[in-house]
């Protein structure tokens, strides 16, 4: 909290009298709120409209001029979605994939992160450089060879095919390494003197201190997997293997394309779970971005 200097002492540094300055500052502040609020409306409006639209009938959405609130709200769209279009399966697929991808990243990125941060070994620098270099490679570069590989392993249209390529991520390694670098070496040395093995140190000393980093990694990875589109689109070839975004994208261009309310409800099913988690955990999200972003 900044302390406000009394007007008498502030005035000699300022060219204009304090009351007028304060009034002017309050006016700017008022404008800031107006601008930020208008921006907020623009940011949130598509979500509001999506949720409201999911409770409308198609006729009502198409009617012009548009009415904002549903006249008589209906859950018919959701019934069709989970009944006839089988979004339950896609939901389960998305969750299964995201859970395994997240677990894999936590385990494998933590392990290699520990080696990179706290152990000395030959090839360490090279490994880290390679990991960082792949951060720049766009997803489309790998997907053709990945598809050939997946096809030859017989994994097309299977959970392993959806999951395996994402069990690790360079950004996860980077995150865990950076965090572990900040942990005190003394604890590790003390444990070594006590005769603990590296595995024991990793599991009992290091990992328990990595809470914030693991939380960030979990959020980012789960989210990335949940929203992932290109690879599932390529690998999931029959409906029973679709994830939510794939199902939604493919249904939205077929015969259901004109079914506005249905598509809105589909979007709600994809978006609202993560949105809810985000609102609850927003503090950690923001920390996570700052943690992975800068430094």
């Amino acid at each position: 909290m900044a302390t406000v200097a009394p007007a008498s002492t502030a005035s000699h540094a300022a060219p204009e009298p304090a009351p007028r300055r304060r009034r002017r500052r309050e006016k700017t502040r008022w404008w800031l709120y107006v601008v930020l609020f208008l921006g907020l409306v623009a940011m949130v409006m598509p979500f509001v409209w999506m949720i409201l639209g999911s409770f409308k009938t198609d006729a009502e959405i198409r009617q012009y001029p548009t009415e904002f609130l549903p006249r008589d709200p209906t859950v018919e769209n959701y019934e069709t979605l989970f009944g006839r279009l089988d979004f339950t399966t896609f939901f389960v697929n998305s969750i299964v994939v995201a859970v395994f991808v997240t677990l894999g990243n936590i385990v494998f990125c933590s392990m290699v992160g520990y080696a990179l941060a706290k152990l000395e070994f030959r090839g360490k620098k090279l490994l880290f450089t390679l990991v960082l270099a792949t951060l720049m490679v766009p997803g489309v570069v790998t997907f053709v060879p990945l598809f050939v590989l997946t096809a030859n392993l017989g994994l097309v249209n299977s959970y392993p095919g959806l999951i395996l390529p994402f069990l690790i991520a360079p950004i996860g390694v980077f995150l865990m390494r950076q965090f572990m670098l900040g942990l005190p070496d003394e604890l590790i040395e003390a444990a070594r003197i006590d005769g603990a093995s590296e595995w024991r140190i990793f599991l009992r000393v290091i990992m328990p201190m990595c809470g914030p980093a693991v939380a960030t990694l979990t959020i980012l990875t789960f989210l990335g997997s949940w929203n992932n589109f290109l690879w599932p689109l390529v690998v999931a070839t029959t409906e029973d293997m679709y994830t939510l975004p794939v199902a939604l994208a493919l249904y939205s261009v077929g015969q259901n394309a004109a079914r506005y309310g249905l598509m809105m409800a589909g979007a709600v099913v994809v978006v609202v779970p993560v949105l809810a988690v985000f609102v609850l955990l927003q503090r950690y999200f923001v920390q996570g971005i700052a943690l992975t972003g800068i430094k």
Partner: protein
Amino acid sequence: MTLTAWMFALPFVVLFVVFMAGPIVASLGMSFTDMTTRDLQTPFQVNIVGLDNYARLFQDPRFVRSLANTFTFVIVAVPLTMGLALVVALALDKGIRRFRTVFRVGYYAPVVTSIVAIAIVWRFILQPDGLLNGFLSLFGIQGPDWLQSTTWALPSLIMMAVWRNIGTLMVIFLAALQGVPREHHEAAMVDGANAWQRFWNITIPAMRPALLFAAVITGIGFLQFFEEPFVMTRGGPLDATLSTAMYTYQQFGFGNYAYASAASYVLFLAIVILSLIQFRFLGRKD
């Protein structure tokens, strides 16, 4: 010691080689061959054709168009996103105390959401009789059929991408603003510098690393521009929104594996070049 360390690294290294480094190298190799769907089971028996795929790419007007679209998208959307995010971050950093969390959550919400779902909602917002044109009609403006117009389709996707990415940069800028030393501002104020001068001479230089970082990650992200045209326009109308990533995906779908790999490597090169340029211009002072 080395052995134990490698035991920790091993699972990652195996997955990394098989599913990342390997495919990256393989993609480059593949781009010099004539591999198609029929070689799927025997990928090592393809013919080497040298740079043929690359030559063909640059003779294909659709590919050239896709590059032009992608670059237009990047050149317009990156500064726009950065500018708006900076405005929001400055506003949130200054004076605003109440509703701060609400603003932060609201501006960040689009970032965490699935772009496919969002694209579908935006498709309806951008209908000729959709929400946006309804809003414009309040001011007596007759809006276009955004996504069906060769003029407005790309700007529509840019608008959506800016909307979605402001949040990420806002958070990065907010973190950077907190690192701007207060004393510098106070000293400049005593010297009679106005708000604008302080912004240009103190805030911006102090934020240079964050601005560079933001420009690079947004540039890399936008060059890969795929989901929006896939869901909203399928690259149309008349290839007006065909992106390079979308073109690559289409060629892959036609079974032209080698050709698609070459296209993806052109995109990769573009990313490397763009990042180098950005480092040159924005990173100069470090």
